[in-house]
């Protein structure tokens, strides 16, 4: 493409010709890069996944756009160069001669090394800042995050304030359920969230490893058994979204989805209190274990002495501790 308009080498002023050609090449590359960057930034960026529904999603969108703008000139540079050399330096039919014996060029090599190092340094600084500033950028941050989200830790959540909403995400083979500790630890199969509210997800699993991925929320955190994996986000728009499982977890991994809605804080409060009241009424809250950051499904206080017999058969790791085995948990 770049070298299409370039005459092939001939004549005596070959050296100047070549100089001019190289400037042409550089110019073409710069123009193409500029065009590409403009297109990426102004046309593509607004439509880039995962959209801008939440703060973390916005940051990811921004990062991807910036990386694309950084990458485009590099890719174009290499492609322009190859297009040029492949056309200009191809062996004409019947040409048996060898190329010029160039073993290297200290200047070019040094320049290249410095250049790539600069890019890498920039990527690292940018990535780190973008990781720390939005408190983990929606990725799972383990049990005790060092980059925390601003907001007030409260026992009861009230709309319109800066209270952080705690949501526990429980992965199990093969469905999601969500507990809201600030609403009596009520549990739900849908993930409803208030808009413009700092949200803390506590992601855990009851069996194997799952991965909590509400794509539009720009959150991704592995659900590990007996581990509390924290992720932060703040929704900026109302709307519905889908939660997927992103870590292979068995036969129904592909179908392990659930739905969620981002609603106004007041509407959310209404919904949550309603669910809490209903579950209190029909005894669900009483049946649930007390809210905790992780659960050991083999510990079932209500069953008392039967536990060992039952667990011995189908309980958590108990498969090789038969009923009554003293070391069964």
């Amino acid at each position, binding site marked *: 493409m770049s070298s299409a308009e370039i005459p092939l080498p001939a004549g005596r002023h070959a050296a100047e010709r070549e100089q001019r050609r190289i400037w042409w090449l550089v110019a073409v590359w710069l123009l193409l890069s500029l065009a590409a960057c403009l297109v990426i930034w102004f046309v593509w960026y607004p439509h880039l996944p995962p959209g801008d529904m939440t703060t973390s999603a916005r940051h990811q969108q921004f990062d991807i756009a910036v990386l694309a703008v950084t990458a485009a000139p590099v890719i174009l540079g290499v492609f322009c160069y190859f297009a040029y050399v492949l056309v200009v330096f191809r062996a004409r039919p019947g040409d048996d001669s060898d190329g010029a014996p160039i073993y290297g060029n200290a200047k070019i090599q040094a320049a290249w090394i410095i250049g790539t190092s600069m890019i890498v340094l920039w990527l690292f600084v940018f990535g780190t800042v973008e990781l720390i500033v939005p408190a983990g950028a929606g990725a799972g941050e383990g049990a005790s995050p060092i980059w925390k989200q601003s907001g007030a830790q409260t026992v009861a959540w009230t709309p319109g304030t800066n209270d952080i909403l705690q949501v526990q995400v429980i992965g199990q083979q093969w469905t999601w359920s969500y507990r809201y500790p600030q609403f009596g630890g009520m549990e739900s199969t849908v993930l409803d969230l208030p808009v413009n509210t700092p949200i803390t997800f506590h992601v855990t699993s009851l069996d194997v490893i799952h991965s909590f991925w509400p794509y539009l929320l720009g959150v991704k955190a592995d659900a590990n058994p*007996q581990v509390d994996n924290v992720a932060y986000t703040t929704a900026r728009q109302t709307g519905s979204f889908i939660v997927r499982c992103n870590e292979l977890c068995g036969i129904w991994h592909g179908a392990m989805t659930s739905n969620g809605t981002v609603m106004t804080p007041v509407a959310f409060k209404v919904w949550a209190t309603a669910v809490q009241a209903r579950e209190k009424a029909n005894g669900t809250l009483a049946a649930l274990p007390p809210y905790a950051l992780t659960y050991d499904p083999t510990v079932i206080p209500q069953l008392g002495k039967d536990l060992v017999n039952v667990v011995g058969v189908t309980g958590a*790791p108990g498969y*090789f*501790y038969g009923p009554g085995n003293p*070391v069964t*948990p």
Partner: protein
Amino acid sequence: MAEMAAQPSPSAAVQAEDEAFYHESGINAAWTGSRLAIGGLAFLFGCFAFAYFYLRSLNSAGRWQGSGFVQPAVWLGTTIMVLALLSASVNWYGLQRIKAGRKSIWQIAGLFALAMGLAAVALQIWQLTTLPFPPGSSGYSSVFTGFYPVFLTLQLAVLIWLEILLARSRFIPAMSFVEQPPTVTETQSVQRFQASLSSFTTVWSFMALIAFSFWFLFYAL
């Protein structure tokens, strides 16, 4: 592009020259190979050491050493470890003697080393069959029952090497270790034997080191 098939086969002297070249390469290969083997083995055992420290520091469900945990018999573990150390050091002593030209002393030392190594392996197997805990009752028990089968299998493999050296040493006249043998073939065979022996000593001493390290992890730490 030399069409070699066309050319006459090289003279005996020239062939001997090439053979000497590859003899040298083989001797060096024994040295390099033993060191490289140590490198690879170090990563294999490192994988278990990592598991040990990872599970110990994580102590998930409070079951690094669960409730009612009983440690395997310390005296037995210590005996096994000491046997491995003794075997290595005896063999190392024998190596010094054979370098000084005393083949017979190395042979005795080697036999002792072999015997002690086999004793260590046998005791280890016996210990594994009579463990005071089910393999999966805790993190400790998992690493313990996982590590030792691997280790004793590799110990056995290395001991086979020792057995081969002992077997081969019978066919090398003791005099060859004292002064230059008359023929090239004998010289080379002695040199190969010595190279193999010193490589073996390196690896076997490394195994003893591993035995001690994991004894420290499992019984002392």
